[in-house]
């Protein structure tokens, strides 16, 4: 599966939303269930799924799908 699709699946599972509904506008502001606790679970789930470690300074800031994808791709490149 493509990285983006896996990422959408993980976000959908953790946030309890439909994967197909995730797009460039999906963010903490547009998804009601995406609170700070769910955000933490999301970071943990992404780290485990892709075998990466998201730096602490990024972890709090990646609050939208495009931002998560950006940081994820950077981390995967550095792996």
């Amino acid at each position, binding site marked *: 599966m493509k990285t983006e699709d896996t990422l959408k699946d993980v976000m959908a599972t953790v946030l309890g939303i439909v994967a197909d509904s995730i797009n460039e506008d999906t963010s903490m502001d547009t998804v009601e269930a995406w609170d700070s606790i*769910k955000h933490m*679970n999301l970071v*943990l789930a992404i780290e485990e799924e892709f075998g990466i470690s998201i730096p602490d300074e990024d972890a709090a800031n990646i609050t939208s799908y495009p931002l998560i994808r950006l940081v994820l791709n950077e981390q995967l490149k550095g792996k």
Partner: protein
Amino acid sequence: MSETDDLIALLTAPGTTLSRTISAVNALEKLTEPQRRVRIGVSSNVSVDLLSVFLRKYALLSGATADVCMGNHDDPLTDVDQFTQADVEQMVFLPFFDNLLPAFELQLELLEPEIVAAKEANLRARYRLVFEKARKMRQIYACSFHRYTPAVDTGVVNPVSRALDRFNEMLRSEAAAFPNVRIIDTGAIVHQLGAEAAFDPRFYLRNTAPFATPFINELARRIVAAARGFNSYFYKALVLDCDNTLWGGLIGEDLIEGIKLDPHSYPGRVYWQAQQAILALERQGVLLCLCSKNNPADVDEVLDKHPGTVLRREHIAARQVNWTDKVSNLQAIARELNIGLDSLVFIDDSDFECNAVRGALPMVRVLQVPKTLSDYPRLLSEICELFLAGGISAESRSKTAQYRQRQEAVDAIAQHETNEQYLASLDLRVQIARDNAANLARISELTLKSNQFNLTTLRQSPAEILQRIDSDSGTVYSLVVSDRFGNAGLTGVVLVSWQGETAKIDAFLISCRVIGRGVEFCVWPTLVEDSRRRGCHVMEAEYWPTEKNAQVADFYDRLGLPLVAEANGTRYYRAALDSFTPPLIDWIKVTQ
């Protein structure tokens, strides 16, 4: 494999990621018929949101579904109220030591001892209130305190360790007053995983969420083990193969000099240590049995004469050492001990035997001695957990002697002309106690594990029994049975509710160890007399069918209670006390 099997395999596999765990739990809950649904509340002073996912996971792996409610932040008294209103029957109480005050472990280096002592006293009072308020809950899993920050080794005991010991002592002593509180040793989880894997400082600082997923997973696993998979199992006997399980090598070929079993060399010490662990289980009340393809004399020679043997003949409650297949032998062992096959844990080194038993007797828990011997100790810990994590009562300890007495009594029957003569020769005595709180744990245990002679199979936690004992509207009767062969212990329970003019028998159960001697009839004159004294005119009783209690379907008919209705196998009985005379059992001496 079915979809359910696939999901279970995914959840049991090591390394399944968080996201896949969440999807598998969601999917499996949709596929599982909720035969057993448990409601669990979580009350903590830190954020442990993911505990919900992992409690649901281990519930599903035990065949139950769990609804988990998260409490407020550090507000256990309100949590208990809210949980009670939501019919939550079990609560996880998880106070995190370092967050009792902000960065408590760092502060401890600076705080005056009086302040720490005041904090301890304040928490003691608070926990007592919480446990008091929650005393009607079925079970509370109170997590002990553990260290979060690494300790600098200064060569002396530091204030954090000292405070941890004191606070844990405080928690344990408060919990000890409440039969429904079970301590979960969280320090053991940190020890097992290592602090690096157990904690995530990033989210502790940002979200007050200190635990990493491995810790939460293991905590949930231990809680469900302590609940015996939410009462999905209750193992009573460990059935052991001999060759390459209790010793290395084959006794039939290597002979007594050749088998590996001694404390001082490899691989003999692996088996010697295994025998130590197994004998320790016997001391805790687990019945040990042998199921081995060997000549009985060869096995006896090891148990009697081998210098390294820890297990002796007197530790074995039942044995099938012969050349018959193991499936038949396990069935014979269950029959001999009068327990269900689902009460057996079977351990063997052979793929063939393990698969044969798994295939034919899926209710038997089958465990295989690992091919890599250094993994054997881990399997033994797993076995200990299966038997002991649910708790043990003093009465349960060293049951083998009681079962052996029973076997001797069975042998004695042969020497008497009639069964009545035999029973009279036994010198049977039954002591009936009312509302004896000292035996609370044993009474509850008997209601949780008795299946066959159990009229309603009403499972009662220690807290529920205590409630009945404390209440005026009910009485808990317990029976202690003894005969000239020995004391069988507390082996019968009757739960009665006094409902105006009616004495209602909520539960009646007798341990299989003592049935067939009239014990099941001898309590009824006392019950009738007590009912009259309380002003009752009517006695009501019910039989609720299960897969295992068919043998008592007609018990109340035999007792002489009139059947008034029957629906879906449930049988309702009702008798006017004036016209009900229980059968007289003149060979049993009843005392109160």
